[in-house]
């Protein structure tokens, strides 16, 4: 039942809906600088401030750092993506 109804093409999903739906899930957060952070989304707010766990920092697709816990200030965030991707870069 988790994640059911997320793909309904007729339904709209506002940014607020999206934020509610992704807590606790693995995500990719890209900053304006181009740096990627991958990890488990612990919590977030309407400013796109984000707390992540098991965070991996990728610069130019290469793993540079790991953080157990990380806070990202929302103004730096370009996008938040659910991470169910097939591209296996930076393995």
């Amino acid at each position, binding site marked *: 039942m988790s994640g059911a109804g997320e793909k309904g093409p007729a339904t709209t999903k*506002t940014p607020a809906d*999206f*934020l509610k739906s992704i807590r606790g899930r693995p995500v990719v957060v890209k900053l304006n600088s181009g740096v990627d952070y991958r990890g488990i989304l612990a919590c977030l707010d309407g400013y796109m401030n984000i707390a992540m766990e098991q965070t991996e920092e990728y610069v130019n697709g290469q793993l540079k750092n790991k953080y157990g816990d990380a806070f990202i200030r929302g103004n730096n965030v370009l*996008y938040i993506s659910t991470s169910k*991707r097939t591209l296996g870069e930076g393995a």
Partner: protein
Amino acid sequence: MSSNNPSQLLPSELIDRCIGSKIWVIMKGDKELVGTLRGFDVYVNMVLEDVTEYEITSEGRRITKLDQILLNGNNIAILVPGGSPPDE
């Protein structure tokens, strides 16, 4: 007064009509995205699905596929309904 004039269409109403269809987002700087629009808010933060991200770098174009994203509206420059890809 002119709210029932059909020739008056707010920009946000135009975007609203794009929900469920492909849209091409051109960002400030050398970045573009194409995806299916799921929703947006007053800041034009957007929820996009089945996204292709194009980053124009000095070594060429880097393409990233993303499942579902919340795109920050802060750096959005242009929205093109229909979503024709950057290459023809």
